[in-house]
């Protein structure tokens, strides 16, 4: 199944994501009203979900301008597709899946091969995490805080970042990621593991992580 068909196929219920995406007060009413063309209701849906959708786009794309453009596209697409939402999954799960598929199509249109073929989501050897058996392998000092982790995730090679965000942040299962990225579930598991290993490397030297780019560049 290609990404285009995923955009129009109702998703199967995912109990795990229902747990992470509990219904928001007033959301169901806003969805029904927006389906009937209520502009205020659609505005409410935007207000409820804009930050999550934008953050998802920003993490996948690593660029503020593109993330804002994709957020816009995602909500326009939502407006057109809202009538097909049947409530089999949490609304935010459905919206995030729609957003992920739009971002992946955008990346493919840009000619980035990293999400199109199994072998090309593997970052280069230079980017791969390094293991030296026999050498000392100290644990991370202290617990991982979310701000530092966010910076480290932004520093990941795109292929690793994609799988890590989809699995560990968004909560998609490996089989779902495999379908979205058109790779095997084994490859998804392997890429996730390498992403976590790479993050461990990056988190050992947090002072070397670049600051997060959260501002739109001027004169886009």
């Amino acid at each position, binding site marked *: 199944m290609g990404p285009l068909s995923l955009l129009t196929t109702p998703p199967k219920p995912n109990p795990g994501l229902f747990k992470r995406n509990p219904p928001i007060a007033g959301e169901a009413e806003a969805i029904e009203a927006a389906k009937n063309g209520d502009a205020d209701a659609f505005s409410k849906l935007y207000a409820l979900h804009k930050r999550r959708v934008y953050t998802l786009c920003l993490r996948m794309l690593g660029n503020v301008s593109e993330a804002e453009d994709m957020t816009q596209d995602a*909500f326009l697409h939502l407006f057109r597709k809202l009538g097909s939402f049947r409530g089999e999954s949490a609304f935010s799960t459905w919206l995030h899946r729609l957003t992920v598929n739009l971002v992946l199509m955008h990346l493919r249109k840009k000619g980035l091969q990293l999400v199109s073929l199994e072998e090309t989501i593997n970052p280069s050897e230079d980017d791969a995490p390094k293991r030296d058996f026999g050498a000392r392998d100290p644990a991370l000092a202290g617990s991982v805080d979310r701000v530092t982790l966010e910076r480290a995730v932004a520093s990941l090679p795109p292929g690793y970042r994609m799988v890590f965000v989809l699995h560990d942040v968004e909560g998609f299962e490996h089989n779902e990621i495999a379908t979205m990225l058109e790779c095997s579930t084994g490859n998804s598991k392997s890429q996730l*593991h390498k992403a976590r290993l790479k993050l461990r490397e990056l988190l050992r030297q947090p002072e070397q992580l670049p600051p997060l780019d959260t501002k739109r560049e001027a004169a886009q």
Partner: protein
Amino acid sequence: MSDSPNLTNVNFDNMTQAQFEDYLPDLFAAAGRGKVSEDPRFAKFLAAHPDCMNLVRDLESIADTAKSLFEPSADLEPSDAVWSNIASKLKAEPQNLD
């Protein structure tokens, strides 16, 4: 890598560190919401290989913290121009095309 290797008949007690790490992607995937570091099947191996225990705990910590990223921080939101653009395009196109 196969998609779902059979882990039930694997004896982890006498593995080398490299062999154990080869299994880690599948062990984490199979653990789901559980923890590899707390699974009794690996207790003997991990007790004998503290570097591996450190690695497993660090990767679990990274995965746990990643869940907290699902809720975006308050300062991360699109600019007002995004909604302005959406609103103007919605006015220009027919309602609920599909």
